[in-house]
């Protein structure tokens, strides 16, 4: 990721601030910046969401569905694929293939987070076992990064999946060995995914001897190690990744996981509340997109 270059003095200032539980933007250690979500803003995708953290980090997610053949070893399961594109709009460093490393890192974290059948059951994407299934592409476009990219992506993916509408298959039969699939003509006749168990991604950043949630890019460059965890709403952790060059004692690691788990409840609760409120507006919801 594009590191923000900071002098030693600036770093010391931030670290001392975190020690006093007062960060540069006035937040305490376990406080998020305001999160803004707009979903269903792209009519041409099956599901979409745009999420912004603190007016800086900006992520756009689009979900598209295609009919595909299932894997031979898992004939009754569909496919779920995450693709991350770091747009050069975010920073010139992402130009060309510059953003590919970060993109692969983020998509790996997401596929690990959604891998367990407890979180996302791929069987619901199956149409005819051995023959046809839905392939769900979750495409993430990173438009601007100002720290805490992973949390933003994780929450935006959950928001996009919340309003994803899978067209209803009305007939799926085998006609002489050939699959025959008919999808409903009515664009409103569709199936929604059950997102209750979908994980949120949370980064716990270790700055000095303290842990910080939702770091800005300045704070990220002060931290030597951070833990990236995806937590399901019931508190189960589906994946843990350590980022950064620093090392952690086992005790610290457990403490960080505990902090992350507690915060993830609140994050998930706030996210679901916001999404349900937006969903209640129904079709009357105005689309702002990038015009606001």
């Amino acid at each position: 990721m594009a590191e923000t270059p900071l002098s030693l003095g600036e770093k010391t200032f931030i670290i001392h601030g975190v020690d006093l539980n007062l960060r540069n933007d006035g937040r305490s250690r376990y406080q998020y910046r305001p999160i803004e979500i707009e979903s269903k803003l792209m009519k041409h995708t099956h599901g979409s969401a745009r999420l912004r953290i603190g007016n800086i980090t900006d992520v756009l997610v689009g979900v598209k569905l295609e009919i595909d053949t299932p894997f031979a070893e898992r004939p009754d399961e569909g496919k779920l694929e995450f693709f991350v594109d770091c747009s050069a709009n975010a920073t010139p460093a992402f130009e060309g293939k510059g953003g590919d490393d970060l993109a692969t890192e983020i998509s790996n974290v997401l596929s690990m987070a959604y891998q367990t059948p407890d979180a996302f059951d791929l069987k619901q994407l199956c149409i005819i076992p051995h023959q046809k299934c839905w392939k769900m592409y979750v495409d993430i476009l990173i438009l601007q990064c100002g720290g805490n990219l992973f949390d933003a992506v994780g929450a935006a993916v959950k928001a996009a999946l919340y309003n994803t509408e899978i067209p209803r298959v009305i007939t799926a039969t085998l006609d002489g060995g050939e699959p025959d699939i008919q999808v409903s003509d009515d664009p409103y006749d569709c199936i929604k995914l059950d997102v209750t168990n979908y994980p949120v991604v949370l980064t716990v950043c270790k700055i000095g001897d303290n842990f910080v949630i939702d770091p800005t890019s300045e704070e990220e460059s002060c931290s030597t190690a951070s833990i990236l965890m995806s937590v399901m709403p019931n508190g189960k952790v589906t994946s843990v990744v350590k980022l950064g060059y620093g090392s952690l004692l086992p005790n610290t690691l457990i403490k960080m996981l505990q902090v992350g788990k507690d915060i993830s409840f609140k994050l998930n609760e706030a996210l679901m509340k916001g999404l349900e409120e937006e969903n209640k507006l129904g079709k009357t919801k105005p689309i702002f997109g990038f015009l606001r």
Partner: protein
Amino acid sequence: MEPDQENDQGGLRVDGRRALELRQIRMRMGVFGQADGSAYIEHGNTKVLAAVYGPRQSRSSASRNSTKAMINCQYSMAVFSFTSGERKRRPRGDWKSQERSAQLRHAMEAIIHLELYPRSQIDVFVEVLQVDGSDYCASVNAATLALIDAGIPIKNYAIGCSITLVNKPSVEDEDKTLATGVLDANFVEECSPGVTLSVVALAGTNNDIEMDGNGLIVVAHGAGQRLHLSRLETLKQRVLQGCQDIKNILDRGVRHHLIANLLPSFLHNSLD
């Protein structure tokens, strides 16, 4: 699309527009805080984001000693950008995006005062979020707006506008076809048999009817079938009129943006 659909609808196009009617253009400047300049534009359902970084020190050693600024453009399409069901495999790096990047660079080089920034580089990045025809033209307009937002001195607006000559199969329609070049084609019209010309022009400053001296075509790019040379002149006249219209819309938008975000210090200076 049925080619004779236009006649059935009383001379209207598939989306109900007249031949020289543009789609609704909505724009916003200063979308992103981190970029030096950014803009967002919608031509109907075609949606484009553009960001400008620079002028800054060039990374490549070749341009270190050049007397002009180097323009670096990247045209990229989001993988979910297609309106018609399917998904794009790669956001950039394919043949089409590379060609578009080069054409965008030509358009930008034509308007920026390059000689003011020796040994430096200006990056223009365009991200197409939704494609519904005329996406290259929309991206030129977005890039121009982003340059204005970045405060980079430009000579004139580079305005992209597309014109499509819809082919009619019947012979008696031949003389009518001459006149039927439609402006700002959407995806359906672009895919129908016929020629699409994407033109980037520097539109004149005042609203002149006589276009010959004012409309300077910078980039013209054709796609589709062959075009008879005799038709080119009428198409050119029409597309320059379209560019003029778009320019008026963008100019109004820019002025509105600048007045709305006026710095108090600027107001103070202009009163003196």
